């Protein structure tokens, strides 16, 4: 009678040994292809340069800018407060710690939006949420925020409002660099004052 229990025990032990032969599956949080496709169809991942400018100026604490260009390009120029995760290191050790931080909205950007979108697809597949893509990338950033074009006279008042905001933002972003580069000790004061000015310009 007790022998039956012994058999049973051995059977369970043998079966449990099967666990060792299971394929390694650390992809539990991977998004399945159908859901990934669904998210790709959804254009809400794109954020405009105006939105980003506003968020930077307002020092939105939830904004996390991620530059997916190469280290050299990043060192040459990047957006304020951006961190660098080159596209080819997205899966490298340590870099993914910057993604999936609670309450943070990570925004990928590159020269235009292709590379950033590719980074987005990969990160989304890896299961990261709250990730976005800067529509148009840095090219669009320069063309809209840094060197805004004056709308034609017949344009809507919204277009002019947007233009005014962009002018202010342009001053903020190009002017802020003066203070940080020029007068080291006064820099922080200058930056904050200018920030308020830009906000006031956009808001009032």
């Amino acid at each position, binding site marked *: 009678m007790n022998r039956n229990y012994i058999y*049973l025990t051995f*059977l369970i032990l043998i079966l449990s040994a099967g666990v060792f032969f299971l394929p390694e599956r650390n992809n539990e949080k991977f998004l399945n*292809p159908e859901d990934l496709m669904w998210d790709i169809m959804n254009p809400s991942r794109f954020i405009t340069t105006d939105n980003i400018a506003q968020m930077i100026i307002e020092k939105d604490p939830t904004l996390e800018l991620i530059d997916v260009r190469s280290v050299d390009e990043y060192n040459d120029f990047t957006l304020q407060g951006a961190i660098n995760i080159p596209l080819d290191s997205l899966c490298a050790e340590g870099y993914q710690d910057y993604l999936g931080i609670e309450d943070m909205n990570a925004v990928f950007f*590159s020269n235009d939006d292709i590379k950033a979108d*590719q980074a987005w697809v*990969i990160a989304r597949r890896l299961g990261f949420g709250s990730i976005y893509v800067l529509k148009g990338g*840095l090219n669009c950033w320069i063309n809209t925020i840094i060197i805004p074009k004056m709308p034609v006279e017949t344009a809507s008042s919204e277009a002019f409002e947007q233009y005014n905001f962009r002018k202010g933002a342009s001053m903020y972003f190009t*002017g802020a660099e003066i203070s940080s580069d020029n007068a080291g000790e006064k820099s922080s004061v200058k930056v904050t004052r200018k920030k308020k000015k830009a906000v*006031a310009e956009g808001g*009032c």
Partner: protein
Amino acid sequence: MHIHELNPKKTVIALVLFAVVILFGLLTVVNPRLKYTQTPEETIEMVVWEEGTVFPYELVDVLDGSIDTVLLIDLRNNFEYGKGHIQDAENISSVDLLKDENIDRLKQLKEDGIAVVVYGKNQLEANGPWMVLRQLGFDNVKILLGGYSYYTKWGNNLGDSYADDAYFLGGADHDFAEVASTNFSDDETSNTKAKVTFSRKKKAVVAEGGC
């Protein structure tokens, strides 16, 4: 307890139940319909080296029929497709791409050694679907750089279009560091203008108070 031990059938029943549960578990192991065959690392390598892309001028041979192992798939919606599409292209809109019949079709095409070139309005529109298909193991799927808009721009002269590299994205249009600091260099050259910067700042303070 003693009665239980005296009844060997109970052990047998337990054994059978156990085996049934195990079998049931094995049979119902989730076998997803679609599985990634590419690891994220491989996907990164693919996009970094820009594999699986088709230049617009490469289409010329396809369009004049000298290469017949290529199938063009238009990923835009049916309405857009109806308004105009690349010659001989089939329409499978992105939302329907992962439906059973289309997956079967793609598998068949892969077996037959047919290269599939997908395109959208622009490269960005086809980028996601293309990456998904690639990750699912359809390595015969390529993306048309420039998309439909570049194609319509060149139309019948597509063969001459290699000089126009507007389809080639990913580059910088400006020297960002220089452009973004235009004001900086202006102010830098004439130190007297530094005063202007100060007066501006005063205004900023006024605005601050006003609002």
